[in-house]
């Protein structure tokens, strides 16, 4: 048995097991970590297929950026909001099993009965080596033949970033920023005019350091617990925890 095949079976089995772990893990954080492992194994598969540049990009983009983003979102979402694992409808689960088996059979039949395409392309290992390697060959191709698609991709990414910012912005926060531009503080998310007693220049001066500490602690806790931007951007609330029922 050639070493290549042994490595393929090891990496392939690891990636499939990690993918199964991702689907079956109860905790979404564990799912995310299993997904990282799957992507690392897939990067190994890319290396075996001679796509070294893609392997590195896979690690940087997927495990470096997207998965970190997912874990951050997981921290933002309240754990009580997460649905319990085994509560999918039984019909749905059985149907997905049937569909999965059918799809496996279809794909296997397609792969077994297909005719090999054969080495017909221009990018033989020798020609890739002559320009310096996989990354160089890919770059040459990307910046000549696929220049327009490359530029369009940059547009897609820009629109995606703007859309993400707009979607994740709290509702009505924008107009509040417009209305009270002079009182927004970047140092504290509640803003300088909100809940915190402002010390010497404020209407409710803090007399002792203990009071200030308590106020700070309450502020931090309220910031974590509240999900409604109205609760902490209201005009006129000077002291005490904002009333959650009063929002809106």
């Amino acid at each position, binding site marked *: 048995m050639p070493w290549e095949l042994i490595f393929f079976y090891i990496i392939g089995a690891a990636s499939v097991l990690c993918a199964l772990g*991702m689907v079956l893990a109860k905790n979404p954080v564990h799912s995310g970590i299993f997904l990282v492992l799957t992507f690392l194994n897939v990067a190994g598969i890319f290396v075996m297929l001679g796509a070294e540049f893609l392997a590195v990009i896979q690690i940087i983009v997927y495990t470096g950026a997207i998965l970190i983003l997912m874990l951050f979102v997981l921290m933002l*979402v309240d754990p009580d909001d997460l649905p319990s694992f085994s*509560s999918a409808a039984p019909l749905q689960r059985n149907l997905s099993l049937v569909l999965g088996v059918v799809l496996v059979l279809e794909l296997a039949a397609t792969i077994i009965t297909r005719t090999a395409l054969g080495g017909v*392309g221009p990018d033989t290992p020798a020609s890739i080596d002559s320009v310096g390697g996989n990354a160089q060959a890919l770059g040459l*191709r990307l910046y000549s033949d696929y220049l327009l698609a490359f530029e369009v991709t940059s547009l*897609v990414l820009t629109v995606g970033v703007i859309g993400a910012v707009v979607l994740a912005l709290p509702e009505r926060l924008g107009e509040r920023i417009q209305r009270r531009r002079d009182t927004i503080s970047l140092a504290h998310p509640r803003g300088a005019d909100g809940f915190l007693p402002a010390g010497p220049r404020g209407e409710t001066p803090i007399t002792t350091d203990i009071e200030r500490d308590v106020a700070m602690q309450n502020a931090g806790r309220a910031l974590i617990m509240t999900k409604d931007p109205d609760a902490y951007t209201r005009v006129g609330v000077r002291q005490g925890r904002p009333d959650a029922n009063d929002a809106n």
Partner: protein
Amino acid sequence: MGELSTNHFLFLSAALFVIGMMGMLTRRNMLVIFMCIELMVTAVSISFVAFANETQTLKGQVFVLFVLAVAAAEAAVGLAIIVALSRRGKTVDVDSMHELRD
């Protein structure tokens, strides 16, 4: 069986794709469904690279680069939607989301 061929990689790709699909159909947590979509995208990428390797051309690899870029944009927008939904509706359970219907 003796030699490593493209079919090996295609089978691996199919396995990962089906695992991702079944996870997407059974799980109810929106974030896990999102991860399953990423897994399916990656599985298809393996197919692309395997075919590129078989036909001795770089077109498949270039295509995977574009797929990665689009997947990154999709992840940003999708996660922003999840954040907005969890802030509004206080849940990321897909079965209990019917705001568009009401």
